[in-house]
Structures are given as C-alpha cells and as structure tokens.
C-alpha cells in the first residue's frame, strides 16, 4: 500500500527530529541538532533493510518517492515566503557580510572539491547517471 511508504517516511522524520532535539538538549545547543540529517540516515538504513527482506514493493516505494519528487516545488514555495524585503533593507552591513561570506566559502568549497581525484569524480558521475534522471 502506498501509505506504508509515506508512513515510513513520516516515522523516520519524527524520530529523527526527536533525536535531534534530544541531542541539542544534551549538548546545550538550544536548537535541533541535525534532526533532519538523522531522519535521512534512518530512512537510508530502513530502505536498505527492507529491500533486503523484500518488504519494499513498488507501491510502498512510491509513497516515499513522491515526496522526494515534490522537493523542488516545495523549495519554490519556500523561496516565495522568504523575507526578501527585510533582507534588502538590511543595508550595507548585511549585504557585505553575506556577500563576503559566500565568496570566502565558495573559494574554500572550490579548493576542497579540486582535491577530489579525477578517477573518483568519473566514478561518482557514472553512478549519478544511473540514478533517476532529473525531474
């Protein structure tokens, strides 16, 4: 049943966010620490496990995959509710701090990513190509 997939996704989401809250409280961060990331790992493991045990028929898979496919529309809706007016009103401090931050981080990202060996880049690209084509 398709709801099984969605329910599995929901369960992983809730458990992950709960663990993230606990982790945040445990280390005194006053925020959720990686709840969504933990949820993603739970889902990855749940899927691997259920595949192995043959517990993942097509319909179940579709119940979770649908929400993954809805990701870009959800992000567009997220963009549409950003406080763009306030961001632009933040003045030179906000603009400059944000711009310089991005520039610096982009340079570091570029530097780190250039250290990846060409062979592993090629292998990873091939692996990605086997995955679902872009929606």
């Amino acid at each position, binding site marked *: 049943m398709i709801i099984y997939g969605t329910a599995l996704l929901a369960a992983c989401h809730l458990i992950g966010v709960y663990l993230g809250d606990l982790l945040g409280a445990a280390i005194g961060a006053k925020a959720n620490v990686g709840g*969504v990331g933990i949820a993603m790992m739970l889902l990855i493991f749940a899927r691997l496990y259920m595949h192995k045990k043959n517990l993942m028929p097509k319909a179940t898979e579709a119940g979770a995959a649908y*929400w993954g496919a809805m990701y870009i529309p959800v992000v567009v809706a997220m963009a549409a509710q950003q406080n*763009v007016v306030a961001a632009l009103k933040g003045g030179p401090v906000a603009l400059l701090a944000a711009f310089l931050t991005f520039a610096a981080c982009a340079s570091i990202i570029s530097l780190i990513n250039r250290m990846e060996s060409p062979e592993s880049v090629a292998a990873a690209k091939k692996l990605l190509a086997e995955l679902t084509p872009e929606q």
Partner: protein
Amino acid sequence: MWHMLENVAIQNSLITAFAAVGIIMYLSTHLSRRLTFGRVHASAIAILIGLGLAYWGGSQTGGKMGLADIKLFGGIGLMGGAMLRDFAIVATAFEVRAEEAKKAGLIGVVALFIGTVVPFIIGAGVAYAFGYRDPIAMTTIGAGAVTYIVGPVTGAAIGASSDLMALSIATGVVKAIIVMVATPIAARFLRLETPRSAMVFGGLAGTVSGVSAGLAATDRRLVPYGALVATFHTGLGCLMGPSVLFLATKYLFG
C-alpha cells in the same frame, strides 16, 4: 462570481498553493527552454520567480512571510514551511547511495566546522569595520552570517538588542538568497558534480534553505547529499555561537 472563486481559493489554501507553484514550474520550464535554451535550469528560474513574488508580497503587505502574507496565497506558507520542506528533504534520502555518503562523511564534518567559523569571522569582521565594536554586537552579526537562525538564537543567549538581532537575521537571509541564486551560476567553479562535492558544499555554504534551493537549481540528484550535511549546520552554529565563538570574540575584543 470573482469573490466566490477567491473564497474557494482561500478556504483551500494548500491546494491553491499546489496549483500556483505548478503554474510557476510550467512557466519556468518554458522560459528555461525557449529563452535560455536549457542553459539556465528551470528550477533556478522558478526559485527566482519565487523570490520575486516574495518581494512583491512583502512590499504589498509589510509582513515577514513574502507571498504567503497575501491571503490568497496563504497556503504557500504551509507548502514551503519548515514542516513540508524537511519532509521532502528527508524523502530525497531515498535516492542516497549509502556508500557514497559514507565515503565523504569525514570531509563533510570538516566542511561543517569551517562553514561555521569562517562566516562567523567574516560577519564579525564586517560588523567591526562598520563600527560595531562590542563583542555582543560582533558575535550576533557574525552568528547571523552562519545562518539566520543561529543569529537570533545566539543574540538572545548573550543578550543582544532587538535591532542587532534584526540586522543579524537580515545578514543570514541575504546569505541564503545569495546561495540560492549564485550556486547554479558558480556551479562549475565550485566543482559541484559529485556526491562528495555536494556534501562539502552542504557543510560550507550553510543554511538548509540556501543549500537545498542552490543544489535544486544546479543538479537535483545532488540535493540529498548536500542536505544531509547542511541540516547539521544550524545546530552546530547554535552550539558554538553563544559559547566558543562568543568567548573568543570577548577575549579578543572585550
């Protein structure tokens, strides 16, 4: 007639949002194909349209939620809110190759730490250059440069004034918007091609919203890898901001 239609749309706000975003996606797909011959990703255009609409909504209503403050589009707030956004992000984990994620785990953690400390130093430095010389102000603005949630959480913890918090949030939101818009443009420079590179990006670029939209506009298949790391960004920032980073700032400038 029109009034009744409007009522239906408002009463079914989430459904209206699905339809509205569908129209935006349709338009951007055609703009991408016809105007840029596919060179600019349809999702990048859709996100730009979204940001433009957010500006329009914000300036129309004076609210904080962009287009979602307009009654007719209230459902956008639910559809793009943290709950469904995180749900959709978790769902993308379905496509993750566990081995790939594991391979880049360590470099992802390193990226997370650099991605917290470097923005903080730059944000605090810019604040200093503009005359905010006391450690509380520098820390609050620096934390805003990490993400727009780390800013106010840190500010509240160390007792910053509300205008400082507003400035810190603005810094974080501008950063998120820059990441959304500039990532597809800079994708080649950033070498965003592999799961590993997406994880490095997720750790360093910060803000789930910036990373998730930036990667969506670049290559949808990289999204889960970047998001996996980026979701730890805010937590780490909220942990380090009011503690280590504030103490260091106080030690140096107090």
